[in-house]
């Protein structure tokens, strides 16, 4: 045993082991939240919408996490209402990425006009996201559509600028010059010849974008702006139960822990991905 352990490990193997160890914990964190959000609705012991007891009963016996402001079972609500925190950012990140990638490629293809548009984009990026969220969130009809718009407005300019900085160099590359000489349009070249080279860095950036989108979505839920459903997501549950924090802290801490776990897990995974390349 001791003989086996003292055998020196090659540097490459040690690095690989370290990376893998770094991946286990964040993967478990994300997987736990995905599991709760996915299976939870079917595992809830009580009806998440039904008032079962008085408000803010602390955790005991039948109610493992106590009850909320309307006497509903917190455990059942946490299990049933986890999926919006995952699904809404996921869908809106994909939409925002599509808009951002198309926008960024057009900016590169149309060089002259692109530069002026980027100056405008830089100004848009300087506006605090919370300001965008509050103003847009209250003006748009509440719901999933509003969040989709807000996330796209906040995220797409980042992606567009990122794509532009990545793609700009490729327009000097040999294979693009060949297409240019053959008479292809710059827009067509951007999508057909340049885009396939950008997938890897774009996928890496998607992690950051997801965290940003999740931040927007949960902040919206917490502020009660553009809420999805009638307070049926972890962030809105926190706001609704804040008044009973002293009576049943679990009603606030449980959904907050779910959000924190997901955010930290995704960010740690993104960090490992960045460190690997």
């Amino acid at each position, binding site marked *: 045993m001791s003989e086996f352990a003292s055998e020196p490990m090659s540097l490459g193997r040690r690095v690989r082991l370290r990376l893998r160890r770094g991946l286990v914990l964040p993967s478990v964190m994300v997987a736990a939240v995905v599991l709760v959000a996915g299976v939870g609705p079917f595992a809830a012991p009580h009806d998440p919408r039904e008032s079962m007891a008085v408000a803010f009963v602390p955790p005991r016996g039948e109610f493992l996490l106590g009850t909320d402001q309307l006497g509903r079972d917190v455990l059942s609500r946490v299990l049933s209402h986890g999926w919006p925190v995952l699904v809404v950012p996921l869908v809106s990140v994909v939409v925002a990425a599509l808009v951002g990638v198309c926008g960024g490629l057009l900016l590169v293809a149309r060089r002259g006009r692109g530069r002026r548009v980027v100056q405008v984009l830089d*100004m848009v990026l*300087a506006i*605090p996201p*919370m300001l965008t969220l*509050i103003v847009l969130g209250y003006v748009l009809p509440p719901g999933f559509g509003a969040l989709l718009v807000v996330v796209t407005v906040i995220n797409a300019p980042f992606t567009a600028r990122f794509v532009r900085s990545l793609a700009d160099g490729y327009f000097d590359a040999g294979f693009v010059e060949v297409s240019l000489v053959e008479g292809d349009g710059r827009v067509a070249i951007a999508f057909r010849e340049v885009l396939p080279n950008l997938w890897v860095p774009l996928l890496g950036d998607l992690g950051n974008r997801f965290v940003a989108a999740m931040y927007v979505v949960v902040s919206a839920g917490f*502020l009660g702006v553009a809420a999805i459903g009638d307070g049926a997501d972890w*962030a809105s549950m926190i706001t609704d139960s804040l008044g009973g924090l*002293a009576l049943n802290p679990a009603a606030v801490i449980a959904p907050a822990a779910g*959000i924190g776990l997901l955010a930290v897990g995704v960010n740690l995974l993104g960090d490992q991905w960045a460190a690997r390349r």
Partner: protein
Amino acid sequence: MPAGFVLARLGVTVLLLCGVTVVVFVLMEAAPRDAATQFLGVKATPERLAELRSELGVDRPSWLRYLEWAGGVVSGDFGASLASGRPIGELVAAPAGRTAVLAGIAFLGVLVIGVVGGIRAGYRASGRVDRALSTAALIGLSMPEFVIGIGLIAVFALWLRMLPAVSLIPSSGQLSDRPEILVLPAVTLAVVAGSYVLRLVRGIVAAGTARPDVEAARLDGIGPARVLFAHVLPSAVGPIVTAVVAVVPYLVGGAVVVEQLFGYPGLGRLLITAVDGRDQPLVMAIVLLLSAVTVLGYAAADVLARVADPYRRRHS
């Protein structure tokens, strides 16, 4: 620094602020509900709505009202709130002051967490302390403010009972009478912003420490403190100042969620109340103020970066 650069920067700033106010104005015009419907609520009849709208002056053409508003702002008059009729300046002053106090205290926290922590982590990059600090910072900046705030409340208010969970302003209206209400909100902001600054500063200092001339100084037998203060930090000061200044807009504008969580009556909470009541002039004034702080913060960071960098000072 050439005057042309500063002037161009100023021009862009004014244009951006005009753009932001136009967009916010148009959005609020397009909103399905306005101040009159919000004020009357379920009692709204078409006649009463029309009456109230003409009383508030919101029945006149949009472009005319925007120009009047912009003209007023240029001469320092932000108009009156639609909801209460009180002058905007009077409504905004106290909350703006409270937000500034909170941001100022949080800024001190950012200096400690971000700058001191970042220098410590970066000076011995990939050491044990660096790995602990960097991971902690990544966790700190990953979580939404309200999750961190709730964690702090759970520990310091509910469990240890050391600090208040709600930041109620004392009846005297003086924050100095109950300074403890500022601690948890300020720490929450400082953790998020400080974590961000820590990672930036760590990178700057780590890059400086790896430079050949610094390595040579170390091989000459110069002590670690002297290497840090005489060889690494002088050239790192510029980028560090830029990173720290760029965080100020976040502390002011990003405080909305923290103010809401702790019930702290600052600018962010006022903005939410104003948007909820479709109080157009009040929303416009707060948005203008917050955007101005943001844009000026970034502009200041930009100018400082040029001042601190001899190469860019000469070539821009």
